[in-house]
């Protein structure tokens, strides 16, 4: 068969999932206890992301020292960096440090988390987030968002709630949850980030053409997916937390 069948008539996707099925979601916390205040590892299918959080601290670490030096009196300065090494994709491709797409994602994530962190607690501090993409199989923004949420929680930074994100694609009127690379290449998709268990969206990003009538279906499936991811992350946080507690006693 020359063309890939993204969604079979029986309702099976290219990797054997149903339309509303998430990929395997695994997460770990405190993966790098010595080099960071908080760290996390998120794996969604074959997408793997590591996130390190430094701070809150008084000033930026040496790498970024030249940049924004003015401290904000109302909240923290959040600096987010995505490191996307050449080996993370199927095709080896070197990305420039100032890749515009990645920079845009950084800005989007930054604005997203500035509203999620209880910012009044962290006035005049800097929180530095570094993300390294180990392997990417779709859902870059969603993976990064989930990883940052976990890492911030691990760092003991006060958040109003979890932000969980997921990508949803559209195939002939049918919304598909949690896209992989093959699906992302052929279908248009949106990424949404949901706050906690509510229906409130913190983050919406759509880069492809999409009939407006289908948007509602996509978002509602996405919200359900985000809630499930939040649940999975919450379980992990509790697991790690109780583990830490048992060690303390």
């Amino acid at each position, binding site marked *: 068969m020359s063309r890939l069948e993204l969604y079979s008539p029986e309702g099976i996707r290219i990797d054997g999932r149903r339309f*509303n099925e998430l990929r395997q*979601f695994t997460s770990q916390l405190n993966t790098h*206890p010595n080099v960071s205040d908080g760290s996390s590892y998120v794996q969604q299918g074959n997408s793997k992301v590591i996130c390190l959080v430094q701070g809150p601290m*008084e000033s930026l670490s040496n790498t970024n020292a030249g940049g924004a030096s003015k401290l904000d009196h109302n909240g923290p300065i959040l600096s987010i960096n995505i490191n996307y090494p050449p080996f993370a994709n199927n095709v080896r491709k070197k990305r420039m440090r100032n890749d515009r797409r990645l920079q845009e994602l950084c800005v989007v994530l930054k604005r997203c988390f500035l509203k999620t962190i209880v910012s009044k607690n962290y006035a005049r501090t800097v929180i530095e987030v570094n993300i390294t993409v180990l392997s990417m199989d779709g859902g870059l923004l969603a993976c990064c968002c989930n990883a940052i949420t976990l890492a911030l929680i691990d760092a*003991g930074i006060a958040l109003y*709630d979890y932000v969980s994100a997921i990508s949803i694609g559209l195939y002939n009127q049918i919304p598909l949850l949690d896209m992989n690379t093959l699906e992302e290449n052929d279908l248009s998709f949106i990424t949404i980030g949901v706050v906690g268990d509510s229906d409130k969206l913190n983050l919406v990003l759509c880069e492809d053409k999409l009939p407006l009538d289908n948007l509602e279906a996509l978002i509602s499936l996405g919200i*359900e997916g985000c809630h499930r991811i939040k649940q999975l992350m919450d379980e992990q946080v509790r*697991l790690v*937390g109780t583990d830490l507690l048992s060690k303390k006693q």
Partner: protein
Amino acid sequence: MNIISITQAHRKTSHTIIESDDDSDIEMDDQGIITRTGTGTGASSSLVVTPGELITSDPTWMKGHGTYYLTSSSTTTTDENNNNNNSEMPTYSSLAGTIQKVNKLLTVVPFKGRYKPETGDHIIGRITGISVKRWKVDIGGERSATLLLGSVNLPGGVLRRKTEADELQMRSFLKEGDLVNCEVQNGGGDGGCMLHTRSLKYGKLRNGVFVKVPSGLIVRSKNHSFDLPGGVSIILGVNGFCWIGMTKRDGSGNSNSSGNVIGNNLKTEAGLTQKKYK
């Protein structure tokens, strides 16, 4: 909306990697049940909460660190049960940690996090900068602490008002990179804390090794410095900065050590005082 079906396999597969899989799994389940029942009643002492979780909707609790709450005024109009709203003030957690209750004060203590200074903490800090009449000290917290020139003991244990000459000599007392053994004079607040070393047991640290551990592992106690057999003493700073070094001699050594605490250059100090008396 449809129900999401999910590959549940990951729990099982991850178990093969994690060693103590069975225990943790059960633990988690237990915990899940406990917290779910716990949120309603607000009962026993150490409950695990995660960000955004409802702790209690009882307005009588005072809200401490790690919590946030909806003020009743903002929920009044559009909510479904108007009658309840006047009395309801839901409190949520903003951290992943355990609930701690002191009288009517409700706080969430995070599992991890940077050191939060509290008045009276015995800590170890590292000098990061010198400015007018003060040292900037890294204490592993969110912000640097300040150590005022006025709140250190001068070398030789002389008690007097600090002069301009002392101000110029600050770097000879403590320079960047030096470690100090000190106490938090007034902690927390918004703009970093103040330190002091106005005691013979505090001061500059030398002859030893510095070790950093997560601050959560150190319990606040009455005594933080311990003498081990073999002439080794250890200082466990509340901020997780620890110092393993040579035991200072007691008796006569004590007065000596007070001289040694700050300022390695006794000679210049003597010269300074002499000049002053001329």
